[in-house]
């Protein structure tokens, strides 16, 4: 009886503690970040090392880096996941090797990816400090996560679909497109959101690859400063940059929420379309 009550108490305490930390964090950012947040903050260029002015170019750079990362990582990860789940045997040497490598890669600290990206994309491929280098480095970083979640989503699709579809003389690719991918969509979206979250919050890997420059980028070959790098710089290197840092952090969180809800609603629409009509 006492033991039970104690357990309940403990569970509640942890729940309150966890959500308390989250609420505190959010409140802190909102309280400090909201006053400076305005339309001009969103569109203007930073002045005085970011102490005043806005974060227009930085938002653009962030979205470009994220765009490059996702445009590269999504098709690659989907293709790899399909290959692993549908076209290789689960216990094959190839499959085991790839899975093990991915799991190790997923745990590698991001700064290592930064150094790798710097060596490969910036120097070896000659892309220099650029949005392209940064985006490709982030793609490498989120690839393991995206592949593993997509693969697990496909694996979780009922095997009966594969059998029933084959028994109707349908090809494997048709089964994949019409039945397995839709069934795996929730998992794909969940993985995508985790990936976007990791990518948009990345600082270490980007400092070495996409650089610090806070001008508006002209092309993907320009250096561009990501929001997370901006926040890091403001709070570490710029005295009196705290207010801007808070506002930038708030923008970062809002951006993440926005991207997530767009991804969710797109997926819902697509699912709905493929389920109900042609």
């Amino acid at each position, binding site marked *: 009886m006492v033991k039970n009550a104690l357990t309940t108490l403990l569970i509640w305490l942890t729940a309150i503690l966890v959500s308390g930390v989250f609420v505190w964090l959010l409140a802190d950012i909102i309280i400090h970040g909201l006053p400076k947040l305005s339309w001009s903050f969103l569109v203007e260029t930073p002045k005085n090392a970011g102490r005043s002015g806005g974060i227009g170019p930085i938002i653009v750079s962030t979205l470009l880096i994220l765009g490059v990362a996702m445009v590269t990582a999504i098709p690659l990860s989907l293709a790899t996941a399909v290959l692993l789940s549908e076209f290789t*045997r689960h216990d094959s040497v190839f499959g085991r090797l790839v899975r093990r490598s991915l799991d190790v890669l997923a745990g590698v600290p991001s700064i290592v990816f930064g150094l790798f990206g710097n060596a490969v994309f910036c120097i070896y491929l000659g892309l220099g400090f650029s949005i392209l280098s940064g985006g490709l480095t982030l793609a490498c970083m989120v690839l393991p996560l995206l592949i593993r979640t997509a693969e697990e989503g496909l694996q979780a699709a*009922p095997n*009966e*679909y*594969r*059998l*029933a*579809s*084959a*028994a*109707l*003389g*349908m*090809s494997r690719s*048709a089964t994949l497109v*019409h*039945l397995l991918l*839709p*069934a795996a969509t929730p998992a794909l979206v969940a993985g995508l959101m985790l990936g976007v979250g990791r990518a948009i919050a990345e600082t270490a890997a980007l400092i070495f690859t996409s650089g610090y420059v806070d001008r508006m980028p002209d092309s993907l070959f320009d250096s561009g400063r990501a929001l997370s790098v901006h926040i890091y710089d403001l709070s570490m290197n710029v005295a009196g940059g705290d207010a801007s840092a808070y506002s930038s952090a708030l923008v970062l969180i809002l951006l993440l929420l926005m991207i997530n809800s767009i991804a969710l609603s797109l997926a819902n629409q697509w699912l709905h379309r*493929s*389920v*109900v*009509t*042609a």
Partner: protein
Amino acid sequence: MSHFINNKSEQVDKSNTDDAYTLGPLQVGLPCCMPEPLIRVDNLSLHYGLKPALEDVSLDIYKGCITALIGPSGCGKTSFLSVLNRLTDLIPDCRISGNVHYDTMDLRHPALDVQRLRRDIGMIFQKPVPFPLSIRRNIELPLREHGMSKQAGLNDVVQQVLQDVGLWEEVKNRLESPALALSGGQQQRLCIARALALQPKVLLMDEPCSALDPISSGVVEDLIQRLRGKYTVVIVTHNLAQARRIANYAGFFWIKDQRAGCLIEFGQCKQIFEAPVHELTAAYVNGSRG
């Protein structure tokens, strides 16, 4: 000829809803005057890895007839059906030996057009597997994949096969609603309709009624009876009374020596149930073993 009449006469007018079906009235007996083998299986053995699942099975499936396969779980009935439409291709490690011929085709030929074959030999599973699509899309999807794209033609086929399985009146006003919302029996009939839409010659049914309630099971059983003559049906069933009611031929599988399944006895349904040659068959159909 008369040996085909293996059904009791009270089965004849069991259903009074004939007008809901377009496949025609219940047929009892006399499906075909001259039994003509459509699928011939000789010395078929099947291994999963090193484990034998079927050993030395030989039997003929007769055109237009209903062939029932009975036997305890695990004796390889599902595996046997999967050989006939090459669904075994999907199982890694599955090795087959022996000869299987469909019409004049060698079913084990490596260059066989498997997708084409599976349109000819449809399969119904124990658990109904409607796709998570609308009722209409369930039937249209395989048709579209096989190159039929005119919506008018598709509409006709959808209506035709739904009428064939007696589902049209029940669903004609909600063709766009999800197939998963149908009842179990309706789902199974939708799956049969989906298979019929491809105009198969043979239907393999793996315990099609065992996941259904008795009423739905009866409806599906009636439907299978209506398929006789127009389609060649191979049905696995654990319901001996059902096998006895609907089948022209019956095969009894058993696990020999705790090892592999094999065919103990095959023959006309009446003979298997009323005058079995093998003592195992006798014990099984009388319910004293299995």
